[in-house]
């Protein structure tokens, strides 16, 4: 049976824009015979019931995520397709620890470089997504991925790489200054800053942080690699090599306007740079173009020596309509949450989801819990609103005042009403000034 690997499409002359997908393809090209699998650049997570890429389709079973796919391949082939089977205890420990290290640290750095650094995102990453995505998705998915990457790297305190965040911050400070009345309105000049002035200001602050982050990432890897051809053993690649190659090539390859990550890698880790080059040439192909992936029928292709591309299916009108409907529904509050939970449950309960019985039970239980939470929060909002209105009616704040307000004051110049209004302004003014 042919295994279908669905991935995010090529970008920056790499076969995929996503590190997990790159790692998975490298693994496939290392362990599987060429005629046993095809690579589909579907670039649409909704192909898989778990809504994630990379996803492997084997008959009716779907498996997603690098590690699950690796496990599935081992079981599927009865232990034959397993890169890590010959590792000793110590090597196995290193394999686990370094893999976790590469995934956690590497993901942050790639996020910072490709998504959070604004010029890089708008100049390179966003157009790259535009080239691989089909029509409605190219407007829908990149902002989502962008937002997720920002969220993941929030704790690093490097949001100043993100020009939008800086602008928002400036706007906030600006309006706060106006509100505080510190600056007379007439004197406030709208801060008009170009990208380069913003960068020159922030880059020095960032430089130290980035320096530390990149050193922490590259140094242990460089010293583990030493002069060996592979990280853990002199003659066999392991899963660590797949993951490292994926993150390192995303760090090294893209030709970005603000190339701090590539510069750091080349200066701090020449060994890793050479390793990445060599591994990429052998296992991923040097110049992968989008057109190869999208139009290829798995015949021989000159530029990507080892990857058996298969053209993804064109989206039908039905799928297009569904995508549009989904997006609209997903951006409606409340409805969004209900749908999210239902989708999770459906995915989990689907018989072909590739999850074991226990897993699908856990996922659906989780989705149910989310649903209950949602109802709970809607309920509590309604109850508290009702309580507030009830209380106000009870102490007479609402009922009588409505009647009073209906006295038309504009047509009838009643001096009493006039005085009232003045007094009101005075009291409320006092109250506000106390704040």
């Amino acid at each position: 049976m042919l295994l279908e690997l669905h991935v995010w499409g090529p970008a920056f002359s790499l076969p995929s824009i996503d590190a997990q997908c790159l790692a998975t393809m490298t693994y496939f090209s290392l362990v599987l015979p060429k005629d046993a699998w095809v690579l589909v650049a579907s670039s649409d997570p909704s192909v898989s019931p778990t809504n994630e890429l990379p996803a492997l389709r084997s008959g009716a079973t779907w498996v997603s995520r690098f590690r699950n796919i690796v496990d599935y391949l081992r079981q599927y082939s009865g232990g034959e397709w397993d890169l890590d089977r010959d590792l000793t205890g110590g090597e196995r420990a290193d394999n686990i620890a370094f893999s976790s290290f590469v995934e956690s640290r590497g993901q942050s750095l790639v996020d910072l470089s490709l998504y959070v650094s604004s010029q890089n995102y708008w100049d390179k990453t966003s157009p790259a997504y535009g080239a691989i995505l089909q029509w409605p998705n190219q407007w829908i998915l990149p902002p989502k991925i962008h937002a997720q990457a920002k969220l993941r790297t929030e704790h690093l305190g490097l949001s100043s790489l993100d020009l939008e965040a800086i602008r928002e911050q400036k706007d906030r400070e600006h309006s706060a200054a106006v509100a505080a009345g510190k600056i007379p309105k007439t004197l406030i000049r709208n801060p008009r800053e170009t990208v380069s002035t913003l960068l020159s200001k922030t880059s020095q602050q960032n430089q130290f942080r980035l320096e530390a982050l990149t050193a922490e990432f590259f140094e242990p890897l460089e010293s583990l690699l030493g002069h060996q051809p592979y990280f853990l053993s002199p003659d066999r690649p392991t899963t660590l090599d797949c993951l490292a190659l994926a993150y390192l090539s995303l760090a090294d390859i893209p030709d970005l306007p603000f190339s701090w990550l590539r510069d750091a890698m080349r200066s701090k880790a020449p060994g890793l740079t050479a390793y990445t080059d060599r591994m990429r040439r052998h296992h991923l192909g040097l110049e992968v173009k989008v057109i190869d992936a999208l139009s290829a029928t798995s015949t021989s292709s000159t530029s990507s020596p080892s990857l058996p591309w298969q053209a993804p299916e064109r989206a039908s009108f039905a799928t297009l309509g569904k995508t549009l409907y989904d997006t609209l529904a997903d951006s409606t509050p409340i409805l969004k949450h209900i749908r999210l939970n239902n989708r999770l449950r459906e995915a989990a309960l689907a018989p072909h989801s590739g999850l074991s019985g226990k897993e699908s039970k856990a996922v659906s239980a989780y989705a149910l819990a989310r649903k209950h939470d949602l109802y709970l929060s809607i309920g509590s909002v309604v109850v508290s609103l009702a309580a507030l209105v009830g209380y106000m009616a009870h102490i007479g704040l609402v009922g009588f005042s409505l009647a009073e307000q209906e006295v038309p004051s504009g047509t009838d110049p009643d001096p009493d009403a006039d005085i009232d209004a003045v007094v009101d302004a005075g009291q409320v003014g006092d109250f506000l000034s106390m704040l």
Partner: protein
Amino acid sequence: MSTENRDGLGHTAPESPSADERSTSRTARARDLFSVPAPIKRIFDRFPLVVYPANDLPQSRDSEFRGNRLFVFTDAAGSRRGRPSFNPQCLKWQAYLKFVGIEFETVPSTNHASPTGALPFLLPTLPPGTINPIPSTKLQKWAIEQVHCEEEQQLNIRFEVYASLLDHRIRNAWLYALYLDTDNFNAVARKLYVNPTTTNTAVRMVLAAQLQQAARDELLKSCTYIDVNDLEAEAANAFEALSNLLGDHTHFFDRPNPGLFDASVFAYTHLLLDEGMGWKQNRLGRVLRKYENLVQHRERLLKCF
């Protein structure tokens, strides 16, 4: 036309004395527009609803104790006897300070009391009268200045690498086990984090929901759905790697004294193996018990408390 004009003038002329009146009515209307509507004004007039008497000054314990104070998640009894905190982050630093030989007393606290919004933090004795607390991110630096211990990260490249297992793999599985597993949440997390803060049922419900949501958001940062088996398998792998790293040594990286890495491992292994936590579902603990050397490592370190 002229008659019409004159007529118009004639018509306005008798009213001209009341022009003042009209302008006042216009200003009144404008004032009405800017004045606060009556119902809202009534609400504001009632404020303040109640004026509570001023709070007492915080009871200073300076008179009884003049040492360093570490603010952690713990209960009053635990803090008196210096028991390990029930929060892994707090326990890590509590254990580290103990291991490097710094004298301190633990004080029960919550995140709201911390200047950084997270526990633990330390209020040092020296210099006297200091009011600047030390957040957990700077605790190691402070400890090194105090007792001149080594900065262990520099000694071995594997320190940061294996620490990533604790900070991601094991932490994620811990978050799931404590907050999102319903049985455990009701039996353990509610008892430790929610119930001590208040006796009000509604507030407890909200707090519990917030805690669970925070854990969920943290786990969903890196994936689109939470896969329990995946989290537990990753944690099991991580324990295997840690057990392998420890080997037959007494402490990690074969150091003569326990250090920061031992403290970080102990923070999770102790809480997973502690019978007093009252776990309902302890799959992580069961996995951990398979690695005899990690269990013994925890028992050795527990003697320091």
